[in-house]
Every structure is written in structure tokens, then in C-alpha cells.
């Protein structure tokens, strides 16, 4: 598997640390109900198709990445820096 890091280019999967779904980016605001926290921490979709998840270029530029990939075809359609993400 290969990931195209926006800073380092096309690199082998072994350089990256996999974290989980990009849900971790949507942290509930201060004082949010506990149900929101439960959702944020524990509830995850398991899609057959396009999904977004978080990878860390641990043996490279130390940037966190949002990777858009297809769980069925394994196609990677986008890699974006977490720090400069649009949404």
C-alpha cells in the first residue's frame, strides 16, 4: 500500500501510523451532552465504499493526514493535511 503525503510524496505504508476514522476531528464543544462524547469516542461507521480516516506520517514529516479511500477497491482518492483541511 502507498500513500501520497502532500509534503513528502508517494511513500510506503510502513512509514505511516494508522489511527482511525476521521470522526476524531469533530470534537464536541465544551459542555456538550455526554451522548455527544459517547458518539465521538466510540460510535463508528463501517462502510463498504468510500471512507475517510486518519494517518500520521510518523517516519516522515510528522503530519496528520485525512485519507479518503475506498474499502472495497482500496483506491485512494485524496490525501489532505489535517492542519490545512477544508471541512
Amino acid at each position, binding site marked *: *500500500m*502507498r500513500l501520497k503525503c502532500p509534503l513528502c510524496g508517494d511513500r*510506503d505504508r510502513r512509514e505511516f*501510523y494508522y*489511527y482511525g476514522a476521521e470522526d*476524531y*476531528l469533530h*470534537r*464536541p464543544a*465544551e*459542555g*456538550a451532552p*455526554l451522548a455527544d*462524547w*459517547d458518539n*465521538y*469516542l466510540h460510535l463508528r461507521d463501517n462502510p463498504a465504499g468510500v471512507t475517510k480516516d*486518519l494517518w*500520521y506520517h*510518523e517516519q516522515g514529516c*510528522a*503530519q*496528520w493526514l485525512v485519507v479518503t479511500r475506498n474499502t472495497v477497491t*482500496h*483506491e*485512494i482518492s485524496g490525501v489532505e*493535511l*489535517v*492542519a*490545512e483541511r477544508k471541512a
Partner: protein
Amino acid sequence: MRIDGKGLIDRTKPVRFRFDGKDYAGYKGDTLASALLANDVRLVGRSFKYHRPRGVLTAGSEEPNALVEVIGAKNQTPNVRATVQEVFEGLVAQSQNRMGSLRFDLLAVNDYLAPFLSAGFYYKTFMWPRAFWEGLYEPLIRRAAGLGSLSGKHDEGVYEKAFAFCDVLVIGSGPAGLMAALTAGRSGADVILAEESHSLGGRLLSDGGVIGGLPAGEWVAQVVAELQALPNVRIMLRTTVTGAYDHGTYGALERVGLHKSARPNLPRECFWRIVAGHTVLAAGALERPVAFEDNDRPGIMMASAVRTYLNRYGVSPGKRVTLFANTDAARATARDLMAAGVTVAGIIDPRPDAFSVEDCPVHVGAEVIGTRGRLGLSAITVRKGAETFEIETDCLAMSGGWNPTIHLTCHMNGRPRWSEDLAAFVPMEGAVPGLVAVGAANGSMSTHGALATGHAAALRMVDALGRKVSIDLPAAEDAPYQLRALWAVEGKGRAWLDFANDVTTKDVKQAAQEGFRSVEHMKRYTTQGMAPDQGKNSNVAALAVLADATGRGIAETGVTTFRPPYVPVSIAAMGAGGRAEGFAPQRFLTSDQASRDRGAPMIEAGLWYRPSYFPKPGESTWREACDREVTMVRQAVGVADVSTLGKIDIQGKDAGRFLDFVYTNTFSTLPVGRVRYGLMLREDGMVLDDGTSARLGEGHYLMTTTTAAAGLVMRHLDFVHQAFCADWQVRFISVTESWAQFAVAGPKARALVNSFLETPVELPFMGVAPVRIGGVNARLFRISFSGEEGYEIAVPTRYGEALFRDLVARAETMGGGPYGMEALNVLRIEKGFITHAEIHGRVTAHDIGMEKMVSAKKNCIGKEAATRPGLWGPEREQLVGLKAAEAISAGAHLFVPGTEVHRETDQGYVTSVGWSPTEGAWLALGFLKDGRARIGQKVRLVDHLRGIDVICEVCNPVFHDPEGEKLRA
């Protein structure tokens, strides 16, 4: 027998080798199989289950029969295919899976028991009694049915792994592969041409022909010379591409030293990971056997293999050869043999309308229905219409057509497509992104078809790469490929499908009868396709027999999944470099040599190696040294290397604000020159890590993490920063390896530290100051992990060893010395300081009694989730100290004295234990339900594993100096 004037072997270089204890001669360029056939050795192995005599069937890596053990000076490699192993001077090999000699294998009795050993017999026979499963049946079955054996010794062989990158990867070097490589190579693209065999050319080396007006051999030589001259083309011989993976990644196994006499520094094999922009699969096709009664005798082989042995190795596998084939192309075998002066005793062609004029008898519309010859073929029985007759022959060449080598196209879940025209499976286009199958691998069976498809695929790739190339397609034969599918000849006896696992047509039919009608069930019930050849010789024929038995078409019956690797790959090659010390990187302290010089045993702490203790003369156990070192710190002074702690340098206007967000407590209010202990939570409210952070300047902090969590915390900080506050002005970097840091602890610590400083410093507890030591800028922290007055001195790493040696020498003049991890652990248990033994990922700030450290005035990571029900209160297991007069153990569980000991009555567990020479007792830290309310009570500590059952007193976890007077002295 060897045929004069034929073959590509080097007859000027004779090679001696040994097989089953007997010496033979071959030539450079021979495989073990060709050299044995040249010496008229037909019997080379025994079959898996019935121990039937077997000979060489093929000339490639798909060989199911000729598996041998290669014996080296230091290793014994089982299941080596004699068709792949090249001979070299001094090669020693032996046959396998036999009891006694190869000619008189005692387990051949299995063949007479065959009626009882059909498919599924294990499941039916070895059912009762159940107690015999593991003790009796399994060892018996494993002994009787099997492959080669290992030496039982450690494999001292050298293996390598390597990475390669290219624009175009060409797999296979037959006409399709060579044409593709030449086209891509001339365009200037980076090309890797991987060839499984030891020379380029593929079937052209065996089949000859004319390409572009040149004899095929000359055309190959020309192309190879041009490819070798191109700097952008890398030719990898003896390299089998074993698997296709995501995003253009391929695994490949290169046989580096297996064809040479052992040389100490030459790796045996290299496992490659090749990353390719585009891939041309030109792996050709595999000829398939025909199932007829007793079709497994030595001397019966694939027609294409006979041609390979004749034309490539100059060997005729027989003196009186017969041919049984259903294609026109296979006739070349008979013609080539006759041209070389070998007698062809007959051609048996099942097609009634086949061409019948050759220079030997031709029996059209006929089939081979039986064979004779106990240890090697002596005659075949032919049926033509109502008539049957025998032909004397010592070699039967057979062909049932060809199966495209589609395996790699199925490695990423692609399913192949059934082609009625070819009576074979062909690749589904686009099954592996970036890979295009060409030539015979894609069902283009003529030489012209191979050249044209290889050329066209490479042109498209060159174009996609933005390059240009001009290259003409040479002319070559374009004969149509016509066959009438023939899978199995009707008959009563056993007809082999899977030679490697001894599966016959009867077994497949029986599977269908017993309800195993799905191809996946049939495979598992009969074990067809599960041998080292992975069904390369038998899958399609077995499917056809199953389809027939179940009244379905082959396309409907479907095919089992091809998975990597294409050929067996030794685990040693995949894990090359990862054995023993190579298993994980090793990190050494600057004081490493100084500690070893003092005889300190080193223990692993993550990747680090740290001194366990520093033995003194007269001490015979680690405990004696540990007790002495603990007392030394409590009464004088001790020196320990603490450089393994993670150090993160944090700078920027918002540095304090950032630390407030990641720590539960406040750091933005910390004065410059002071240090504070901080607690870090995960977002789910559990403790992530703890440590001290020092404020070195207005916008400059230095964070320390535990040794274990240094990487984890760095990753966490990066995430929090980039995900939630990327616009804050803060940057940080790990400086763990930039600084060597030494703890100096004990009542004489201040005197020792001041003896170094150019200007002595009066540091308050939890203070930090820049200092100069011997002209070097250093940092001095007044922090303690022992409970004594303590300092930590940090110097740039390159001064670490000198400082450590000096510190230890001066400490020794003061009644002190170095202390190791054992003493460090006892000291911190006495003081109730936690490590990752306590903050193991399932404890909250409340559990460790630090809920007051979670600031109410600000938000922080983990704060909100920590308030969820169930994460605080008396039902939680809380950190306590435990004191006992007898030895106790970490991992033990706690119970109320007088109650039963079982899971439901469990009250908690022990995380850290040590003998405290200071307290004169065994001390422990652990977690006890509602523990803080139970201080002063007794608990029962039980460790079933070590047979410990002791009553302990529940204590405040801080045993030593609970008021902290020594720390602040």
C-alpha cells in the same frame, strides 16, 4: 540421456553433484531435474499420501513431484523443486517423504490401502476415540503423509530484503515480456524485467521458431544485448514475482545464492518489494496434464517439458518416447525429438479429425487408458474405438492444452473469466489496477500474439508516461490454437489430477456424491490444490471433473481463489534482517559502555537498554545489589542515567496555552525557571502519561514524558495541535536524543552537583536553571523520582559519557555510586510514584488520587469524558499502597480476608512490588476497590500462579517521607 549438439548448457563446464548418496555429472546451466534426466534417473520422489514412485513432471516452478531436500553445510532446505534448483559443483540433494530407500519405500504399503484412503478418510476413520486425536492419530498421519524434513538446527543462512521502484515492471521474459521490455526500455522509462528462470527468453528457449527473419534464439540474444545496454532497464533473473498488492506494489523472491556453492556473505534469497507505475504480466501459460489411469508413473511428463529438456538442456527424458496430446502445437515435441534422433513410438491424438501424417505412427481418435512400469514407465495401453493395444515406451509426453498464468491477476480479489475457445480461464481486464496481462497469460497463444500484445501494452504505458518510442513489430508465426478439451479419460482405475497431494478423479467425484459440490468444499474435502504447487497443474481439470459430476458448466462451477505467494517463499526471506538482534532497533545510552564496564546487566526498556544494577564484589544476587543501592541513595548519593525519558522542546507565543490544553493542570501560570508535574489524559478520560515540564523562557517549555510513552505523547501532541489548534503559535520537536540526563539523588546530592558547577546554584525544589559544567552549557533541574533531595543534570549528548563517568567517580568518594533500574523502581515504590505499571490505560485521574489536578478553570483533553458515570466514585479501584512481611508479587489479586477467592469477590490487583530495605518490608502499589477509604484495613493478596497467599496492610501509597520534607530540604 544427453543429446549431442542440443541445448543451451555450457558443455565446457562440467559440474559434479550428489543425489541420494550417489555422484553424478551435469553441466553448468543444468537444473537438478535436467541433470538427473541426463543421467537416466527417472525416479526422484515418493507421492504425498500413497508413496507412489514419482518422476519429474514439468520443467518449471509448478513442479508437483520432483521435490527434494538440498543439504548445505549449515542448513537443509526441504521441498526444493528439482526443476528450479540449478546444479553447482558440490550440490548435495536427497529425495524426501520415504521410509527406507527411494526404491523400496516401506510406506508404499499405503498404495495398496488406497481403497481405504480416499478423500475424506481422515474425517471418517480417525474419529474415535476422541482421546486419540492428538496423541496417536495426528503424529501417525503427519509421519506417513508429508513433505521434506527440516534439520532441526537454527538456520544460519543469510537472507536479504530490498525495495525497488520502476515505471514499468515486466513479469516474464518470453516473446511478450521481451517485446514489452524493449518497447518501454527504448522510450527511456525505468524498466524492471523480472524472470523466474536463470536466462531470458521463456518458451522461445524451448520452442525455437523464427522471429523477424531470425532464429528465435538469435532474436532473443539481440534483444537481451540491447536491454543490457540500456541504463534504464534492470534485468532481474531468478526472480519470481510472488504477489500483487495495493497501489502497484509487488512482492518478488530472488534466488541469489541458491545456485552457487555456499559463500559466507552471499545471501541465499532476497525478498523484493517492487513499486511499479505500470505492470505487464507476461507470465505465459502452464501446460496441463490429462487424467488417465496410472498417469503418475516416472517417465510420464508434460509435452512442453520434454521439449524444454531437449532444446534447452540437451536431454531426452526417454529413448522411446510417445506423445498423448490434443493440440497441433504439441506435435512439435515429437518432431523435435525425431529431428534429434530420438525414437518416437507413437502419437496418440484424441481428436478424430487430427492431422495423421508424421514420421512416426499416429493414432487419431485414440486415448491412453493405462500404463505399466513399477518404478518407471515401460508401456502404455491405447484405446482406439473398440480396439486396445500396448506400446512399449519409457517416456510419455502428455498435453491437455494450456492454462494462462493468471494468478497475479486474482491477488486483489479479481475473478477470472472462462473462455470456451481456449477451454481455460483468462484474466479479467483491470483486475489489478495498473496491470495488463499480455501474451499467453492473456490467452494469446501464438508467438505473433505474444509479441503484438506485449508491444501494444507497453506502447500504451509509454504514452501514459508522456514518453515516445518508435519500434517495429517483428513478424512471427501466428498459428491458431485449436483444441478439443480433454480433462480425463474414462476408466476404472485411479487417474491423478493433483499429483502433489495424491488427488484422483475418483476423489473429486466422491466429494460431489457426498455433497461437497461447491468448488471450495471440494477443494477442502479432497485437498486438491492445497499442496506446494497450489493446484497449478490440477485446478482447472479438477473443476472440469467436478462440473461434469455435478452436471454444471465450468464457468458456473467457478474457481477457487488464487492467493499470494505464487511460489513458496521462505519465511526467512520475508523476515530477512529481523532475526535475533535485528528483530527490533536497539537504543543505547551514552553511559552504556560505562555501565557495562562496571558489570551491570542490561535490561530492555522499550527499545532502550538500561543497567539493571551495578554488582559489587561479594554480592551474589541482584537483590543484594539493589538493596545496597537503595540504601546508598537514601543515606548518601546515587547517580542514574535517566536520558530515556522523552524530552519535547515546545516554543511559541501560545506554548503555555497549548500545555494547558493537553495537561489537566495549568502551565501558562508557571514562572520561568520553575518545573511542574503534569498529568495528561486521553480524550476518553483515561490517563495517557505523566511527567514534568519546565519553563525555560517566556515562550519556551521543555516537557518530559515517561520512557514508555515518549513516541505516543509526541504523536498525541501533533494530533491535538494539527487537529484542534493549528492556528496557535506553537511548535515542538523531540529532543530526547539531543540531551543526556542524569539523576543525582540523596542527602549528599547538592554537594555532588555543586562540585561540578563553575558557579554553585541555590535551586528551590522544582526549579530549573542554565548552568555551565566544564565549559559546556547544561541544564540543572531540581526534581526527584526517589523522594530524596534530587537533581537532574542535562548536557548535550556528546558529553554524556564523560559526565556520567565523572559523576560516578565523585559520588564514590562521598560514599555513593551508580544505581540501576531495580533500585530506581524500589525507590519510587517507597515514595508512591507511579509508572506505566500503574497508568496502564484503564485508570482515571480519580483512580490514582489526582482528580484535584484536573483544573476546573479550563478545558483540556479528556476532561469532559472523565466525568462520565462509572469513571469516578467508590466503585472504582483506587491506587493504594500495600505492606507485607512476606514476599508478594505484582499481578496478584486482592480479596477481603475470610471470603472465598474467585472472580466475583475480586477487590483489586497489584501493579508494582519491591522489597524495601528502608521500611524493612515488602511494599506494593495496586488498585483496590474504594481503596482510599480502606487505608489501615487488611486485604488478602492471592497469586495462584506463584502460589502466594499473604495478608497485607492497606497503606497510603507514599510510604517514605509522606510530608515531602526531604524533597524540599
